[in-house]
């Protein structure tokens, strides 16, 4: 394996099956190994053999009961998502194109961001209160993101985002009147570029939810321009 995981030599390829099934390769190494699997029957066979063991490893965790409150949260969230899906379907039927709303101002402290034009696309009535869906501005080709606001809480749903480079992660920031505040939400996207992340805390005084690419472990101040900006208010 090369240092950046961009290629695999003959000697190393067989050795990567075990760390691959255990999730112990970096994102770049995993991507390279998946490409390698397309052409290496030996490694495919090795992965298949070891994958069944990795799939059994969850059973090695001490088994405890999921809290009852968690079920209420999950089922409530699923029912909300179901209502959102149904509402979006109805809306798409009667209004195929959504109007863009007003351009937003440049971000203070992020002068070069040039992030504009966020659109609130829906207010969805639900049994537990309305859900507001904000389409975010995304600076990546073919990527999209929406922020689902329920009361003062929000979830960011992302699709089509590029993988972060080795050693970097995406970080969520909250921007009110001042400079963006860091959160403890750092994430990577799936192989399809998808992620769903909960925005921590109340968004009552938050104007924008931002996402930047930061070194693994996160930053206290943004080191890059935002790749996602969702306007809350």
């Amino acid at each position, binding site marked *: 394996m090369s240092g950046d995981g961009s290629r695999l030599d003959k000697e190393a390829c067989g050795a990567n*099956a075990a760390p691959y099934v255990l999730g112990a390769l970096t994102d770049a190494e995993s991507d390279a190994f998946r490409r390698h699997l397309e052409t290496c029957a030996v490694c495919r066979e090795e992965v298949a053999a070891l994958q069944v063991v990795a799939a059994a490893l*969850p059973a090695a965790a*001490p088994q405890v*009961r999921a809290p009852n409150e*968690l079920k209420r949260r999950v089922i409530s969230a*699923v029912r909300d998502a179901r209502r959102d899906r149904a509402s979006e379907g109805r809306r798409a039927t009667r209004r195929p194109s959504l109007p863009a709303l007003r351009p937003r101002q440049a971000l203070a402290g992020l002068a070069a961001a040039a992030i504009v034009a966020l659109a609130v696309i829906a207010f969805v009535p639900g049994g537990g209160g309305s859900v507001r869906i904000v389409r975010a501005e995304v600076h990546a080709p073919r990527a999209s993101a929406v922020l689902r606001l329920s009361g003062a809480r929000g979830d960011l749903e992302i699709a089509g985002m590029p993988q972060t480079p080795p050693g970097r992660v995406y970080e969520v920031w909250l921007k009110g009147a001042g400079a963006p505040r860091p959160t403890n939400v*750092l994430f990577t996207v799936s192989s399809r570029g998808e992620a*769903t992340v909960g925005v921590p805390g109340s968004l009552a005084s938050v104007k924008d939810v931002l996402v930047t690419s930061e070194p693994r472990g996160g930053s206290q101040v943004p080191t890059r321009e935002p790749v996602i900006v969702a306007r809350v208010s």
Partner: protein
Amino acid sequence: MQLVRRGSAAAFEVVYDRHADAAFSLAYRICGQRSLAEDVVQEACLSLWRSGARYDRSRGSVRTWLLGIVHNRAIDALRRRTVRDRGLVNREGIAERLPAPERTDVEAARRDEAREVRDALDQLPEEQSRVIELAYFGGLTHAQIASMLQTPVGTVKGRMRLGLAKMRMALGDPAEAVP
């Protein structure tokens, strides 16, 4: 799962009831913190709900699929806490013991299977079980493990492979043991 794909929340609730304890147990083992484990399971369940249409039965059971999502999300959660909340994570075990559930026959069978997997892991030489646990439950890469143990990367990979191969021998075909 077909009903879940069609958007049946009631069907999803059945799926949740079957697998929630296993999902929470895995998330709790990795995160070491109850609230974080709950967030991980909720995220994973929503992901399963939204991506149910992509479920392919030929590639494994719903349980395996869900636990795979939980594992990925829990590792992500663990890694993003490395700077700000490192002190809150207990990687060595359960920080908050929860009561064991009452057991149905199915749960009892799964408990037996879980014991077999734990036994297979415990019977490995310590250096092999350690690298497997650091990787799978600790979220560390092979390079991080090598650095932590001051051991060559190739040795770490070799221990992982040997350990998993021995577990496979001990368990027969564990894919069938985890429905």
